[in-house]
């Protein structure tokens, strides 16, 4: 009875929320805007809220009392074993992927891997060091424009420019990092967001250098030890190996380039986690004051996190530029930062496998359901909220601490609130 009353109340609130915004759509008419009523849609939404509230009520009654983990120890061990299997299986699948599927899916995999790489890069800043960076796309943009401009003005190839683009992005990471060192979590987020927007507005308006909204086109494609793709004759990949040239060769090559870059990112962050520096990052994430009182150099810890994260963002940006052959400020909006952040958060803030899975689900899923493209960011946004409410540490939410006194324990998401995660 109480459940019904609450559901009815929720439905009433939903009616108030949806009636003016959903129920009355503004459409261009003959004289200015006109209103087009959509009562059916409102009724459906209100009905969904009513049923949903009843569902939540039923779920609340079934849920175990607080303090007990939802996932029992046996199930947790099983998922851990599955995880141990999943990662090698995914890597093997990634290695042979182009042999299995057609061009469209290789292209899609390139896109997904770009986001996996961005996610792993941002994971260093957000997941390991706990610095919420909402302007990560700025480093992606710096990498892309750095490659485009260096290639345009010096004629250097992709492989020479790649480290330069990464280093430039890292330099920007430090430049941004310096002033924001003293800021607390939420302020930091806003300043990085502002920084991302500043970079985009500058790219948009500095027409003489960046071409403004038209962007830069004709960016050189990558080569394999000097062998070109997409043409025949000497000096080309097809000519050297006596093959007939096909556009597929270039796409497969790009696929392996981004796969290699992504693996490199993963390897570096996994190794860094074991260094004193990586441990300082994780300590910083858990408690800055405790960190400082233990004599950890906060400045160096924060700056390196920014620099390393930005470095990989820059690499990904350079790859993006060479894949598209074209860059414009349009590709570097706040929504892009938000997407990468959503991947990291859904992946479990610190889990490498989780980030990869989240990128596959979110980017791959969004591409496969193209007709719902408008709803993509809506779903991403709601997913962030639902994730924080239900599983604050992400989909893959059990983590073994890198350093532990005695035997390492697996800590469930339930204990995170107590600061033990």
């Amino acid at each position, binding site marked *: 009875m109480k459940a019904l009353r609450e559901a009815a109340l929720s439905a009433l609130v939903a009616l108030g929320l949806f009636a003016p915004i959903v129920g009355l759509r503004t459409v261009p008419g003959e004289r200015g805007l006109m209103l087009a009523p959509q009562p059916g849609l409102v009724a459906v939404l209100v009905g969904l809220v009513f049923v949903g509230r009843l569902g939540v009520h039923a779920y609340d009654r079934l849920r175990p009392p607080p303090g007990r983990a939802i996932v029992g120890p046996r199930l947790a061990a099983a998922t851990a074993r599955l995880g141990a299997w999943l990662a090698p299986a995914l890597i093997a699948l990634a290695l042979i992927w182009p042999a299995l599927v057609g061009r469209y899916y290789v292209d899609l995999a390139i896109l997904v891997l770009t986001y996996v790489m961005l996610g792993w890069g941002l994971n260093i800043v957000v997941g390991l060091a706990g610095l919420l960076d909402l302007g990560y796309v700025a480093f992606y943009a710096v990498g892309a424009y750095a490659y485009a401009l260096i290639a345009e003005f010096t004629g250097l190839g992709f492989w020479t420019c790649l480290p330069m683009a990464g280093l430039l992005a890292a330099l920007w990471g430090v430049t941004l990092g310096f002033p924001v060192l003293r800021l607390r979590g939420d302020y930091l987020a806003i300043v990085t967001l502002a920084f991302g927007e500043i970079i985009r507005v500058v790219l948009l308006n500095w027409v003489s250098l960046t071409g403004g909204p038209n962007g830069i086109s004709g960016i050189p494609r990558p080569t394999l030890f000097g062998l070109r793709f997409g043409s025949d004759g000497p000096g080309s990949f097809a000519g050297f190996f006596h093959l007939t040239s096909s556009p597929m060769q270039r796409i497969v090559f790009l696929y392996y380039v981004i796969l290699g870059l992504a693996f490199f990112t993963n390897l570096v962050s996994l190794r860094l986690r074991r260094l004193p520096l990586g441990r300082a990052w994780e300590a910083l994430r858990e408690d800055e004051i405790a960190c400082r009182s233990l004599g950890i150099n906060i400045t160096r810890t924060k700056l390196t996190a920014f620099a390393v994260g930005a470095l990989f963002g820059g690499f990904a940006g350079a790859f993006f530029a060479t894949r598209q052959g074209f860059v414009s400020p349009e590709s570097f909006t706040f*929504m892009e930062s938000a997407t990468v952040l959503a991947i990291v958060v859904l992946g479990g803030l610190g889990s490498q496998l989780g980030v990869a899975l989240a990128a596959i689900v979110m980017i791959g899923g969004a591409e496969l359901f193209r007709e719902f493209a408008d709803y993509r960011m809506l779903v991403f946004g709601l997913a962030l909220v639902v994730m924080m409410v239900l599983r604050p540490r992400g989909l893959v939410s059990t983590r073994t601490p890198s350093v532990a006194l005695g035997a390492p324990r697996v800590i469930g998401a339930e204990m995170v609130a107590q600061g033990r995660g």
Partner: protein
Amino acid sequence: MAYALQQLINGVTLGMIYGLIAVGYTMVYGIIGMINFAHGDVFMIGAFVSLVSLLGLAALGISAVPLALGLTLLGAVAISALYGWAIERLAYRPLRGSFRLAPLISAIGMSIALENYVQVVQGARVKPLAPVVPGGLTLMTEGSFAVQLGWMQVVIVVVTLAVLALFTWLVTKTPLGRAMRACEQDLKMAALLGIDTDRTISLTFVIGAALAAVAGLLFLLYYGSIDFYVGFIAGVKAFTAAVLGGVGSLPGAVLGGLLIGLIETIWSAYFSVQYKDVAAFSILAVALIFMPTGLLGRADVEKV
């Protein structure tokens, strides 16, 4: 001289709108220490409800401007307040006691969801609205340049001041205001002394959303066009205003709003329009770095 005076008028008008939004940021930050990232989007919802309401009233044949504006104001405030309440209930309240970044991430998700929700249901196009309060006063002329004070600008300043007066009375003189100030000082202690903190926090969001709705209506009337993205930029600028004035300080938020409005207008008038957002964002960074407590804020000591 005349040109500068005109910019001053425009800047103050814009600053009033920013100030109204900034109050919402600063109140929520003061009470639960989180940046309500979705606040700018509540402002945008308020503007959309106002648009729908003005169009609907016109379609119903209510053409008396004061009546239409009054009804729209009430409608926008009521619906936005409901949004504010629902957002707090769904996205923030379950997270109390969770880890540090959780509420902020949830707020970012809410902001993205609200923007795209409005984009999906109302369309991505810019929504124009014919001027509701046209005309104005010519204050002075200098050569061919005439300094205009639009009636619309007068309405904005008067409505803002009236709303702020009401709000100040609410915070300083009523039991609810006292509860809010107590929660701001010490949430746990307030709870121990018998204040329903959940209710107080809810009402804080409701009041903040109501102020944002007023700002949304005024923004719509002033610029005559809105889209689903206005909340993002206006939100960041209003947040800048809150930081500049000192987060947690209510007069500071209004002062900061006025400053941001003036700086933005003057920057656009004398330097470049393209970079006006860069100016606002740079001020945010500079203010946070060199003056983290703002103009009227008090230093925040983090204790273990």
